[in-house]
């Protein structure tokens, strides 16, 4: 199936779409049922194998599917509301999980019956993710997990968590990690909201106190957790910034709208607005170019370029929009009451909240500094830093 021609692939997709719409008319069908049927017809992740929610065709047909569903009045809300699962987890499962595991998890993930979250970062392991300390010790057919994770989106509403743990502290840090799927409703899991500078708690801290995970929930080999986690992160970085958005949308759209609505005319700010517009458009064109070049669907280093560029632009432009607001920028119309939203971020935040929220763009999903290391070393081939944490047991590496 993988070597059918583009036309044949398109035909297959269109035929399945027709069946989907015929048998489960969008708008008239319950979302969950619709998504289930979509999964069964191989339209959940078209590039996945048949039987696993896919058709084995090029991933670029997914956009065709999504557009068609939206045009037909159906919903693709699951992709946003279960983003960590559908956007990042699923690809990890396809690459590293067993058939049984895939069959167990993929369908209810796609139908939103089970929400997913990601448990990677820790207070002591941010940029240096591989330095994480949450331990998992084997006891028969189970693993006992202890430790703390942070920056976990929707932990309080999730059924499953993708967790990386340290199963061997006596080997160098990358070698001692193992990846599991943890039941977030298990005993010993506690979730606390983590309020951020906007006043919202998109994220949580998650504590693990003697939490039992059956060994059948292990993804990949014992000690192979790092490469599994990397698969998840690569999917994340591509998701951020690499998508080709319409011209003038997003942060620059808010800046331009502010300029127009307020009839501004200062020539110095006009030039600055134009500079930002140019930077945004250059980033957009570059994402389009990278996406054209990336026919195969394997996320490569372009993900890091786009993510870096997008994060820095978003910070700069949302900040500039506040400058355009002038005295109105002194206000915070959203209010600072601490709240815990039910989705990842807000899709169209106020200018003020967008400005604050953007501060995290260059931190989450890999800091801009880490992105530059990746670009410098993996794309340009520059040598790495001298490593003081290499080839020594994890437990002997200085930490804070």
């Amino acid at each position, binding site marked *: 199936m993988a070597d059918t021609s583009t036309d044949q692939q398109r035909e297959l997709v269109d035929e399945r779409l027709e069946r989907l719409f015929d048998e489960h008319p969008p708008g008239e069908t319950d979302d969950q049922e619709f998504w289930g049927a979509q999964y069964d017809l191989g339209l959940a992740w078209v590039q996945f194998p048949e039987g696993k929610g896919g058709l084995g065709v090029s991933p670029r047909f997914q956009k065709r599917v999504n557009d068609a569903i939206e045009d037909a009045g159906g919903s693709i809300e699951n992709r946003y509301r279960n983003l960590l699962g559908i956007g990042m987890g699923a690809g990890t499962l396809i690459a590293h999980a067993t058939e049984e595991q895939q069959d167990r998890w993929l369908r209810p993930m796609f139908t939103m019956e089970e929400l997913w979250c990601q448990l990677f970062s820790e207070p002591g392991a*941010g940029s240096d993710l591989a330095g994480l300390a949450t331990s998992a010790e084997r006891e028969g057919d189970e693993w006992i997990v202890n430790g703390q994770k942070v920056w976990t989106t929707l932990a309080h509403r999730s059924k499953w968590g993708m967790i990386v743990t340290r199963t061997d502290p006596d080997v160098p840090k990358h070698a001692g990690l193992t990846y599991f799927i943890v039941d977030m409703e298990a005993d010993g899991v506690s979730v606390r909201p983590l309020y*951020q500078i906007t006043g919202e708690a998109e994220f949580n801290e998650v504590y693990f106190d003697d939490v039992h995970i059956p060994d059948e929930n292990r993804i990949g080999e014992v000690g192979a957790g790092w490469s599994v986690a990397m698969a998840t992160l690569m999917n994340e970085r591509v998701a951020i910034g690499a998508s080709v958005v319409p011209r003038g949308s997003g942060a620059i759209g808010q800046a331009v709208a502010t300029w127009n609505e307020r009839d501004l005319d200062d020539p110095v700010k006009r030039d600055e607005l134009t500079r930002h517009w140019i930077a945004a458009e250059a980033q957009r064109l570059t994402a389009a170019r990278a996406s054209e070049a990336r026919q195969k669907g394997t996320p490569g280093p372009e993900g890091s370029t786009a993510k870096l560029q997008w994060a820095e632009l978003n910070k700069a432009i949302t900040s500039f929009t*506040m400058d355009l607001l*002038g005295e109105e920028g002194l206000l915070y*119309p959203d209010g600072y009451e601490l709240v815990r939203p039910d989705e990842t971020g807000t899709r169209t935040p106020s200018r003020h909240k967008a400005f604050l929220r953007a*501060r*995290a763009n260059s931190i989450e999903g890999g*800091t801009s500094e880490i992105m530059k290391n990746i670009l410098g070393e993996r794309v340009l081939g520059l040598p790495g830093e001298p490593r003081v944490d290499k080839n020594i047991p994890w437990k002997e590496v200085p930490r804070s």
Partner: protein
Amino acid sequence: MQPSFTLTEEQTALRDTARRFLRDKSGTEKVREDMATASGFDESLWKEIAQMGWQAMAIPEEHGGAGYGVVEQAILLEEMGRFLFCAPYLSSVVLGATAVLSAATDDQKAELLPAVAAGELRLTVAGPLGPDVDSSPVRVEGGALHGEVDTVIDGHTADRFVVLASGEDGLELHLTAADADGIETEQVTSLDQTRKLARVRFDGTAAERLGDAEAGSAWRAAIRAGAVALANEQVGGAQQVLDMAVDYAKTRKQFGRAIGSFQAIKHRCAELLVDVESAKSTAYHAARALAADEPDEQDIAIPLARSYCSEVYERAAAENIQIHGGIGFTWEHDAHLYFKRAKSTKLLLGDPVGWRADLADALGF
């Protein structure tokens, strides 16, 4: 004007006392407590600093002040900025008192300034908060005020408003009590919770005219005094976020090393050091130009300091979050309090583009 920066022994002692006092009495927990209140400050702390003479600092002795000057006041403001001290100091003691000093009759000064200096009366100003003002959203007709001012600093807790109003022959300054008939005050949520704002509507409010001269220059004097105050406040805050970033970079370890040992962090801190030191030079120099009553030098030094310090503080506060990583984005960490202060202070009393245009005019560009 020859630049000069050396502090006298007395000034150094003032700075050290202020820093100690604020560290003890206005630490981060106290700031978070005060900023969560409606008034936004603590009356008892306000009285304590009055006893130390802070409100009186730059008010002339003949008006009940301490007879020190703008340089001493700037020293206090730098420390207030460093600790995000919550108090209506800028609105009452800098903006309000300067407007009164510049415009009011002797009788009015005698009535108002000793009370301001003693911390017993709080003024604020209502009008367009920028360097180049030629009209006001408030108009005066038959001695009564009409109109609305969107941004009045501490408008919900001031006792009296100094209002810039458009009259028949140009701009006038008027005084009105906050509880006068025909005033509606609505507090608004400010981005920077440590400086409260209100919207004030005048609807036929009776007012007393301050002095009788055209008010543009008095208003301008108030805004410029405010600009110097903010520049000094900004460098205090900028130094604080630099200190926070450096401390964190020394202790936080990733990859088995303190993150400050990576050039990505180290060089950023070094650049901030250069920026903050430069910003201080401009803020101190502006205070001295204002204190020395050198109008030509003020035309240069004030917009220079105001625009430069705004940008340095904004950059430093943003970098501080980035250097902290995730923890710097949390509500519980103080980084955001400074970040919000930095951004909103930049937008208060005119933004850098406007002040640079003023400077360009002064330099004949």
